[in-house]
């Protein structure tokens, strides 16, 4: 360390004392090298060859319309305005369209073929079109919860009840952190987009797992992380002096007590101080060359999704294990025609830039990128004003895509029926997505468990299959 503030000295000192003083109590984790032990993984994981080291999960919150973006249905266009056949909808869960007349709505914007692979996607995502040969589109997703709050909870934890760990927490619990000065699981939300659905902190909670595995939220405005700024008037050197004194005082206490937490406490102060130094540097884009900023379409500090994509790359470089981006504004109950233009405009450039940038740096091979909402939207229209039509929430079939290490690029998998209502071929349930994600990280999803309330819980509950056909 280059602080010159004696932290290293203190650390050595406490470890020396610890190993003499603390009999049999579990200090094993502290004896691992570096600070990684503060978010340690679980013994035995990865338990299979890992394809990727990290995940960047791009959550398109609100429920992007698969039938407008990734799942082209000529039949919908043909039958636009006709009643939706009751055979599809009878007895099915419906959200805001309860009790309404159900009419088919054709795609509001043309689709295009992209890349050598000819991936079929909306014309509104031309830049993602440029990476068409890197992505694998899954058109047969299903989930179980039809309202945003519970659907996000299900997408993140595999359960509808609160109190279960988010997938980022599971991954960290399994594999541990790779970063010496940043948390291993980070969450970013972005500005822009209307009708922003609330997103609860529950979505990155570690649930019953130890809190060290909790996601840490970065803010695009104000302090990037809660409490990461020293108090007003306190310089870095002064804060360092203070922390050194705290560690020394803690060291003195160690000489007369066997409290095993003191050693950890001292280490946590060291990490906290490192975070105070590294976070401002992380979010400062001034070291990025102009062409990179241009590629992402951001100057930084603007809170946009594009800026967060660049931040995600910077975190990936620094060893953050799970980076979860939320972009809201996909809840197009009405005015979907214009709404989509805006929503796609917010995310198209940043998403594509992230994939290209990682690829150029050779990092796409060990990164998994997931682009997915909490559910999709109905083939039926919503609203009475023909100029302002939208689509309702839909859970029986929707689309997503993945890219990165271990994923077949330029490929697609699964299909919905002719009206895009039900996932009809090769259904991929949320649990299957989780199983596949863990698999790519080198974790057999049935093996990573945690005992809570008398039961061995896992991210995939009692379900989940690895979707082998999308794996390269």
């Amino acid at each position: 360390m280059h602080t010159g503030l004696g932290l290293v000295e203190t650390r050595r000192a406490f470890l020396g004392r610890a190993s003499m003083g603390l009999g049999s109590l579990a200090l094993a984790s502290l004896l691992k090298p570096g600070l990684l032990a503060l978010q340690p993984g679980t013994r035995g994981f990865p338990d299979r060859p890992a394809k990727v080291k990290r995940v960047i999960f791009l959550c398109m919150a609100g429920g992007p319309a698969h039938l407008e973006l990734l799942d082209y249905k000529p039949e919908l266009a043909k039958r636009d305005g006709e009643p939706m056949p009751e055979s599809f909808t009878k007895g099915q869960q419906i959200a805001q369209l309860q009790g309404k007349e159900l009419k088919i709505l054709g795609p509001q914007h043309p689709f295009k073929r992209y890349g050598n692979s000819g991936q079929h996607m909306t014309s509104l995502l031309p830049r993602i079109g440029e990476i068409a040969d890197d992505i694998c589109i899954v058109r047969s997703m299903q989930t179980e919860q039809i309202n945003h709050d519970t659907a996000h909870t299900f997408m993140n934890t595999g359960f509808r009840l609160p109190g279960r760990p988010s997938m980022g927490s599971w991954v960290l619990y399994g594999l541990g952190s790779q970063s010496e000065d940043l948390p291993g699981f980070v969450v970013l939300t972005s500005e822009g987009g209307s009708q922003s659905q609330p997103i609860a902190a529950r979505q990155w909670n570690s649930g019953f797992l130890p809190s060290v595995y909790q996601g840490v939220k970065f803010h695009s405005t104000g302090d990037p992380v809660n409490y990461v700024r020293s108090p007003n008037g306190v310089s870095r050197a002064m804060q360092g002096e203070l922390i050194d004194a705290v560690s020394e005082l803690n060291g003195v206490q160690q000489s007369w007590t066997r409290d095993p937490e003191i050693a950890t406490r001292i280490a946590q102060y060291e990490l906290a101080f490192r975070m105070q130094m590294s976070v401002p540097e992380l979010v400062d884009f001034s070291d990025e060359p102009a062409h990179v900023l241009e590629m992402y379409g951001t100057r930084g500090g603007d809170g946009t999704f594009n800026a967060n994509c660049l931040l995600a790359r910077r975190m990936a470089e620094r060893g953050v294990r799970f980076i979860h981006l939320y972009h809201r504004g996909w809840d197009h109950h009405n005015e979907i025609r214009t709404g989509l233009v805006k929503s796609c405009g917010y995310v198209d450039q940043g998403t594509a830039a992230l994939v290209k940038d990682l690829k150029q740096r050779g990092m796409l091979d060990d990164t998994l990128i997931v682009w997915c909402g909490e559910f999709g939207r109905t083939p039926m229209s919503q609203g009475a004003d023909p100029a302002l039509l939208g689509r309702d929430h839909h859970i029986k079939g929707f689309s997503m895509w993945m890219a990165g290490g271990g994923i077949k690029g330029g490929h697609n998998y699964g299909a919905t029926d002719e009206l895009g209502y039900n996932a009809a071929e090769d259904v991929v349930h949320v649990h299957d997505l989780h199983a596949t994600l863990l698999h790519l990280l080198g974790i057999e999803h049935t093996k990573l468990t945690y005992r809570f309330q008398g039961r061995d819980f896992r991210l995939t509950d009692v379900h989940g299959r690895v979707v082998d056909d999308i794996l390269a």
Partner: protein
Amino acid sequence: MRLLAAGALACVAASAAERVEFNRDIRPILSENCFACHGPDSNARQAGLRLDRRGDALARGVIQPGDAEASRLVQRVLQENPALVMPPVATDKKLTGEQKEALSAWVAEGAEYQEHWAYIKPRRPEAPGGFAGIDHFIRRRLAESGLEPVGEAGRRTLARRVSFDLTGLPPRAEVVEAFVRDGRPDAYERLVDSFLDSPHYGERMAVHWLDLVRYADTTGYHGDVPVNVYPFRDYVVRSFNGNTPFDVMTREHLAGDLLPDPTPSQLVASGYNRLSRMTNEGGSQAKEYLAKYASDRVRNISTVWLGSTLGCAECHDHKFDPFLARDFYSMAAFFADIEEKGVFSGNAAWGSSVRVLDPSAQSEMDGIEARLRALRGEGRRELATGPRALENFAAYLRDDLLRWQPLDPDRAWADCGHPDFDQCDRFELAEESDAVVRLALKGDRKPGEAIQRVEIPLEQGLLTAVALELFPTGDFDSFYLSEFQVRLLGREDWPVRVSLTGLLPDRERPGSMLRDTLDDNYHSGWHGDWEQDRQRRAAYVFEAPLRTNPGERLEVSLIAHARTSRGLPSRFRLLGSDSEFPELPVAGTLREAVLAEGPRTPEQTAALESAFERFVGGNAAWRDVRALERRRKALVDGAHESLVARAVDEPRTMRILPRGNWMDDSGETVQPQVPHFLGPLPTDGRRLTRLELAEWVTSPDNPLTARVFANRLWKAFFGTGLSKVLDDLGSQGEPPVNPELLDWLAVEFVESGWDVRHLVKTMLLSETYRRSSEPTDELLAADPYNRLHGRQVMARIDAEFVRDNALAVSGLLNRRLGGPSVKPYQPVGYYRELNFPKRVYEPDLDPNQFRRGLYTHWQRQYVHPSLMAFDAPAREECAAERAVSNTPLQSLVLLNDPSYVEAARAFAARILREGGGSARKRVEFAFREAFSRPPTARERDIVQRLLEAQRESFESDPGRARELLATGISRIPPGLGETELAAWATVARALFNKHEFLMRY
């Protein structure tokens, strides 16, 4: 032989040659490895074999009691052939050598089963009475393992321990010194009593209880909006402080509303039933959410009182314990009488509540009511003849008029209602002066059947009514309005209809016609003739005042039916009022009369008098009455509103949902009943009530409740439960390490009349409690997790108490009890992801800033970040036990959260003013205040070096000192010197960040 439960006790030396005991030695093995396929869940059962009941196991012949070799159970377990071995290889479960031996030995000894320990009514094992009972069992267990406990903790440590354990606050330095010097034999008991008598005892006890019953200040789902229920929190604090017996508390929680003539406090307690999360998200299905709420309640009551995972039986029979899916839904049925909606609407209406006035407000209210009765009864004429009556009336109307402000739309659209939109003519918005809207047609058709809709951007404010002024257009001779609708946009993800209840017509007769504009029937409405009028007016009063926020919009629709020769009024103006009792905005001569600055013209006076006549109908008491009504309303508004349970006459039908699927109605209907193997309760054909459930829960025959409570209390004071899984005393939980002690405590609790304080005091007086927390090498090696309690535990204090501690030491702590939740400083924008509505967090900038953490506004989706960093739960679900983490985020909170910085500078001021003249004395003072002990020489050195270095920094740049000291709202005592104060504030920060500050040893 004696077998030890897997893991925890593996290191504790076993005493040999003991008989195998099913509950202790065998059930955990079978439950962990066998029950999932050979247990209570009939759907998952393999080969028709169940091993959880002796009769079934013997009937299938897999166990030959007394003959292990001949028993197939043993054979399969010992199998080496991977195709035959049990548990099957695919399950990933594997028995250890000891477990296999245990099973063999158990079968050889006769394969005796026992009912699961937690389902057998506890009886009192023999032991000395009082706290000596505890020490008896603990000593015996230690002796069995050949271990010596450590001695008693020092007095300073003890004082701190008792203070934190009983109040969640540090002891005052004087209290510690007095206890250290107190030579009386009962000095310790006196200390315990003094903390038990503290009003902060109830606050400390409430923290864990509120985690259990998941008390919070917001609804949890979707917009996570505030809900009034804090009187419930205060009820809990009061109950612990007043030592309400636990059975009474239980009854009040589950069924306070069903008690005969319930008191307000009992009604507030019944709010327990309303603490589950609730939704108001558009597009949610009521049936789905009613099912969610029902299962939420079952999970909660079964965890809180029964320590059971009955919640697992929502989708299937329990896999480890004898709970059936039927038991789950029968339990849910007890709560099916609670009035509620699956999907609530709006952000304010969350079902039944009660308003509780504090005593002084209640007496004022009584006076007001008496006065109102008198006024209404008195002769109207005489009250109307006061000399200023007319002037008062004019002032009243002026006040009302000025509170009507034009609502200026920025968007309008309309269509003619024709199914084919393109056939519709389009209107154009043409704005005239002063918010008068003219919707003009592009074509030459007259606006006949049509919907006109305008949108008005809103600001922060209050809206209680909307007035509509109509003007002639020349297109038609008469007007017709069939429907008038107001909706709020931007708060929810769908438009929220504003309920209009009051009508203020401009004439006597159109009153009934106005009502027709609210009936959703296009064939009736309000109409009038333009030839006689230049303007017509009407006002609609909202059912409830609407608090508006920037970003929200008001949408107003004027709808007319087609087949009429009259025209939709297409030239109009909208006004909004924030008056509690709005009047129709006056117009014409009356308006002039009301607004007249100088003397009124005779016409104006006549108009005013005539209006006065009409208005009061000969009653001049209006002003008094109105004033009193306003005051009454203010009192009611200021009252403590709290959600309560209210029973409906027809409880909802409860049926077993196959696989927990709320859309599947094929399951059997069930009635309220307790779990079958613990009951059933006799019904005599009646429907059982929540009150009967509460009585069963706290019946002396209930084997679970007292054990569950005693076990949690044990954990609070000794670090780990006697059975360490606090929310599951079932098969997958842990057989208690000291079952006799747990039973003894449970019986003591019940026989004391569920006296919580008695049980607390008994635990605290024990020698076991008073031991030092420093282990010997021997104890550390043999019992690393301290399950035998040969020493006390080193515990980190709870999230709320961490900040309470800093506030208390600094002298900033506001010790007031109860009241609405408060808002300490919080990072700006922390709520940015909340919506419907958008939330702005406004910290309390008054003494409420320094209230205890227990009173912090509990936002379920975004718990205060400094509380969350120290493991406070979201309280979305029951939390029987908080994690105890040690993270860098905690360090960042203690280092940089302004709450701690402000407390540090306040503490610094105390050090400078009270700590004596020399640095040495001051450091000593600081240590005594913060840690109840003097510093060591080494500590003093470290602190003094820090002080000097920081003083130098601040002196070289005094601006820094000013900036640091500007943190927070509390006053800085004058005359202390900025750089000196800032340097000592840094010392105070160092002490607050020291590990010891977070610990109770």
